């Protein structure tokens, strides 16, 4: 069987090593040249009770030769390490799905614990599927018996046995992964050996014993030539910031406080002290952003990273950055809300908070990333705008792309655009709030620079001098200047593009990290010959200058987002005469292509 793309889901207890198995498989397929998209999905307890549905940790991968825009709606292959893992996924399996599972794990007890009324192997509920019910536990044990390992260590190799079956299924060569074990367990050759044996044995098991399913092969994808690596959105965000800081040339500062699902950006950056970056784990989110504002005043490219509830705490300080017109990158990796909400789930419901969540008229720039890999570019762009326009920039990503991974083409530093720092050396003609005539941007002076001493603050300041001023007309003027400065950012960003013909009936509008999934749905309908086009926004405030022009070409516009219509509402305020329909889901999960297609078809027919 030769397929264009396959969705594989690994599911097991938190201790079953599903994320590792998934990552190894991803890496192997990426090397082979497939397009990849991944989506980890873990419970919010650290170790929820083993063997229960609540404790199941998942890792979904979509691999293909083309058209991989998302981790996929539903798995073609499910790896279920125990009954609970099966139970957690069974309602979402398409009929022909292949299930790889550990027959040994289906004891009476564990079947009950998983919440099955009867044994699924006996009640016919698996009859729609192709099942590989390998005795994974016992075979792993047997194959490793001679190594003299303790039981715990042996059990830890079950995931590699399972992976072996998968490698067989996809005709994947084992060498790279075997080499990986040698490297990873350098210090413990027995463990390395055990993993290698388990992988090999699993693969052999597939080849020798099980003939029910035919193996699957996927051709390599057509990609721009270059060097690639798999990367998660959070890691890519960190790297984009590193790259931007080098372009700015004034040092990078991160002030942050841990919060799911944003913490990995921090974890990644803190590994790179070799690059001179300053990392400050603050006592709370407020100290995180305030230290960053201090570092920005002191001349560093300053960043703070967080998620929704942390963002709420930062809003007062964001207002200070708006007032003092200091560059600042604020990354919000959105999760399910409101309040503590669903910390490990994905959502796009912090858009209004980003746009409006401050006291007073306090305009700033809001942008968003679309995919795990392009988090690199958007983090870079956030820093560029912050510095070149002397403003805080909010970068919205979301759990779904932050934890998801895909291959990223590695860019050379030399090929990245330069960032123009608003330096000043002419003391005579300078004043703290003197502005560039065209961009309205003030200068960024580093304390320590002789003869440029000045004071800034959160009280309204006088135009040009920045001295505290209570003069009504001055306030009116400053309110306008701050708003205009942000509007003019639109002069220096690319125009919005869309995919589709001008005469199309329906324009699908998206933003942020649901890009890939929505694109996938639109592409399929286009292939079916439907009159449908798609545009996804990364620049949210201000919008690209041709936004209205694009909108006016279409008969119908539908805005798709994982919230109750926040972007749609914003667009209504911006373009009062244009009609926007909405498609919204707020269930903590990414969109599904099939739901989107159904909605679009409905709209296309209703026209």
């Amino acid at each position, binding site marked *: 069987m030769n397929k264009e793309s396959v969705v594989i889901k690994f599911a097991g207890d938190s201790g079953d090593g599903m994320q590792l198995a998934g990552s190894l498989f991803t890496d192997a397929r990426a090397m082979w040249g497939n397009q990849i998209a991944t989506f980890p999905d873990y419970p919010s307890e650290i170790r929820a009770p083993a063997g229960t549905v609540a404790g199941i940790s998942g890792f979904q991968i979509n691999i293909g030769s083309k058209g991989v825009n998302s981790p996929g709606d539903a798995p073609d292959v499910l790896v279920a390490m125990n009954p609970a893992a099966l139970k957690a996924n069974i309602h979402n399996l398409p009929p022909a799905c292949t299930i790889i599972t550990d027959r040994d794990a289906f004891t009476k007890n564990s079947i009950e614990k998983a919440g099955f009324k009867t044994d699924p192997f006996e009640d016919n509920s698996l009859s729609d599927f192709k099942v590989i019910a390998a005795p994974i536990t016992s075979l792993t044990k047997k194959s490793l018996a001679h190594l003299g390992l303790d039981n715990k260590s042996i059990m830890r190799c079950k995931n590699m046995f399972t992976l072996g079956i998968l490698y067989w299924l996809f005709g994947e060569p084992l060498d790279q992964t075997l080499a990986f074990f040698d490297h990873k367990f350098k210090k413990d050759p027995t463990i390395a050996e055990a993993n290698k044996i388990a992988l090999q044995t699993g693969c052999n098991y597939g080849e020798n014993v099980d003939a029910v399913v035919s193996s699957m092969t996927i051709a390599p994808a057509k990609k721009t030539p270059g060097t690639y690596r798999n990367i998660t959105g959070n890691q890519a965000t960190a790297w984009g910031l590193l790259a931007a800081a080098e372009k700015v040339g004034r040092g990078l500062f991160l002030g942050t406080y841990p919060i799911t699902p944003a913490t990995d950006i921090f974890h990644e950056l803190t590994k*790179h002290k*070799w*690059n001179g*970056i*300053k990392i400050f784990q603050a006592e709370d989110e407020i100290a995180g952003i305030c230290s960053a504002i*201090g570092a920005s005043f*002191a001349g560093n490219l300053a960043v703070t990273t967080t998620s929704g509830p942390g963002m709420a705490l930062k809003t007062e300080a964001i207002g200070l950055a708006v007032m003092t017109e200091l560059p600042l990158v604020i990354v919000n990796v959105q999760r399910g809300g409101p309040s503590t909400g669903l910390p490990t789930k994905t959502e796009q419901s912090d858009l209004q908070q980003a746009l409006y969540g401050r006291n007073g008229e306090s305009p700033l720039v809001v942008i968003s990333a679309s995919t795990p890999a392009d988090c690199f570019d958007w983090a870079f762009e956030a820093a560029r705008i912050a510095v070149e326009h002397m403003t805080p920039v909010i970068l919205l990503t979301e759990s779904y792309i932050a934890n998801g991974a895909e291959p990223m*083409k590695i860019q050379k530093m030399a090929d990245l655009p330069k960032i123009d720092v608003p330096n000043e050396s002419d003391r005579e003609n300078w004043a703290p709030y003197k502005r560039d005539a065209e961009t309205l941007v003030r200068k960024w002076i580093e304390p320590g620079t002789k003869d440029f001493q000045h004071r800034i603050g959160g009280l309204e300041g006088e135009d040009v001098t920045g001295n505290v001023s209570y003069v009504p007309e001055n306030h009116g003027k400053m309110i306008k200047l701050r708003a205009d400065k942000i509007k003019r950012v639109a002069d220096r960003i690319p125009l919005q593009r869309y995919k589709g013909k001008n005469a199309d009936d329906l324009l699908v509008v998206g933003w942020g990290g649901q890009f890939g999934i929505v694109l996938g749905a639109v592409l399929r309908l286009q292939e079916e010959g439907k009159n449908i086009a798609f545009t996804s926004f990364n620049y949210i405030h201000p919008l690209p200058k041709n936004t209205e022009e694009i909108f006016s070409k279409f008969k119908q516009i539908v805005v798709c987002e994982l919230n109750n219509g926040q972007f749609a509402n914003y667009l209504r305020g911006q373009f009062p005469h244009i009609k926007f329909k909405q498609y919204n889901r707020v269930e903590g999960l990414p969109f599904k292509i099939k739901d989107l297609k159904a909605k679009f078809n409905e709209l296309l027919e209703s026209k």
Partner: protein
Amino acid sequence: MENLGGTCALVAKDFESDQAIKWCPGCGDYVIIKAVQKALADLGLSKEETVFVAGIGCSSRFPYYMDTYGFHTIHGRGAAVATGVKIANPKLSVWLASGDGDSMAIGGNHFIHSIRRNVDMNVILFNNEIYGLTKGQYSPTSKRGIVTKSSPHGTIEDPFSPGELALGSGSNFFARVPDSNIKLLTEVFVASEKHRGLSLVEVLQNCVIFNDKVHEHITSKETRDDNQLILQHGEAMIFGKEKNKGLVLDGLSLKVVTIGENGVSESDILVHDATTENKTLHIMLASMKGPDFPIAMGVIRNVAAPTYDNSLHEQIKSQAGKFSSLDEMFMSGNVFEVK
């Protein structure tokens, strides 16, 4: 920008900005700013390498009046902003001006954490035991029972003792000064800047409008000699109008004795050691209260310890060379070629 060469030492006046000071006539803040300006001159600091950060409050207007770099931030967050400034550029001399409300109410968390981390900066705590700017509500340092706009029937909570809170947070430098003693103020500010790490200076400041004379019993001409013990490192803890009172230990308590009475001689009096790691006596000194005890003034604790900013930059140095460039790092690990 051109340095015309020749260092010409600055005097206190050079540190005054061109902005008119707007504190009430008679406010204790006036003396404090003079002392700070004097200390900066005495220390030979330059305007451009000095940064004043502040939160919000009457006292937090401080940066506007200094011809240095300055940042008037938001209420309670000055310590966090100053931390960022110092880490970003450790060459700067960083000062924080903050009221008792700013640092001990809304800013309490940053206050204790910046002390714990020992970020190298000078914190001036303007303790007038009241919220001045918002026109007179009690603060976390107001004495129990005080009647204010927000406590018409008297407060029902005990105040923080800034020194005790700071020492409980791991403070390595704590000093206390009344706003009326410009000489001691200057001396203490000089010592605070010389100390590497966070130096906390509590100034007993008078708010003439909303809490007038709250420190009067300590600072008035008539009573100050008897009610203040001005500590000097290496010197005996002697005070009193006649310089004949002193402190001795009595088990785990302090006791006031009179030299020449009951066989007490000068050599019995405790000698102040600001630099000892052991903080027991420092806490006892910081927590002395009238009427039975004098209030300890001057530098109570001044102990060397690694600073956060320095350790951070050391750690950065220790990591140097792991990769030679970002390009190299981007290409490290599992990469693959597409042709």
